[in-house]
């Protein structure tokens, strides 16, 4: 099973990358349309971004645990 774990890691990175990319794209788009709302948009993006990051980190920790256990 150990040989498939790096593939899992790759999938996690793809998923998290797509998610963060969508966030950044939408935020940049919103700020470009309405620069005066930049602070509000940043504040709204922050929290889901960190939750997404948390899920990705959790998945990576579990992969690492599977590797060493």
């Amino acid at each position, binding site marked *: 099973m150990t040989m498939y774990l790096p593939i899992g890691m790759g999938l996690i990175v793809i998923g998290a990358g797509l998610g963060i990319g969508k966030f950044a794209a939408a935020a940049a788009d919103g700020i470009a349309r309405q620069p005066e709302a930049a602070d509000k948009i940043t*504040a709204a993006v*922050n*929290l889901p971004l*960190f939750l997404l*990051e*948390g899920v990705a*980190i*959790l998945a*990576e*920790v579990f992969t690492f645990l599977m590797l060493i256990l």
Partner: protein
Amino acid sequence: MSAIEAGRASQSVMEQVGPNIIHHVSNSDISHPLLHLPTLFGVNFSVTKHVFMLWFVAVLVGITIIIPVRKFLSSGKSTPSGWMNAIEGIVQFIRDTIVKPNVGPKWVMTWTPIILTFFFFILFANGIGMIPIFDVLGVINRFILGVPAWDSHNTINHLLHGGVTATANFNVTAGLATITFFSIMVAGTMAHGFINHWKNLAPHGLAWPVYIILIPIEIMGLFVKPFALTMRLAANMTGGHIALLALLSLMAIFGEMFQSTVAGVGVAFISIPMAAAISGLEIIVVLVQAYVFTLLTSVFIGMAINVHH
């Protein structure tokens, strides 16, 4: 040549790199602590390196934050200056942009102190991980004082065991997240009373079969929140250090693979700039993780106070 050195020489570089990296991010061995303390109630109280770093960070925060603030408050001046100005800027930022929007104006002064404590402690503990105090000591020990690496009775060699980032230890972050876990409950109880806080966990006025699914999910969510906080902080701090050391280890690995010094030195031209870039990224991660932990703690406390079901 001692027996230990002979044993090390017989291992290939590839076999040494992995354990070396793990050794640099994990806690020092409990059987060789820095300070021996007795076992009470089945818990070994001996001071390992992460325990030492926790106390060190606590003292550092006390000296650089608590004492200046106390001095400023007792001086009776209305405008801060110098270092106190910087502290005030950070405190105001956290109160106005992290705590106030999430917790609400009514409870902001109740919950800002604990959030600030989290922020400064995590920031200092993370930041100390990026300062290679013990590694520089080790280099001086090896090349200037000429103490060999396998001398286990040398004090500095002894100090080199284990990483310095206390927040890279899952037990430390679990302790911090436990404080968050209880703060959420205390916040809900203070705002709504004990019974109402538990009632607020699930929304009111739904058909009864929904609750069969909803109540277990809400109870799971109660524990998932601090668990995610634990994993996020520790994994971020461990991950960055592993990436740094893995890039630096490439030099040894390539030198071994091609059996030449030139290959190792050649890879250094790629791996050292990469490691420097990742160090820059790590400094951002140090700040962001302290911010994230405080932000999420205040969001969870706010969720218990401002129930919007």
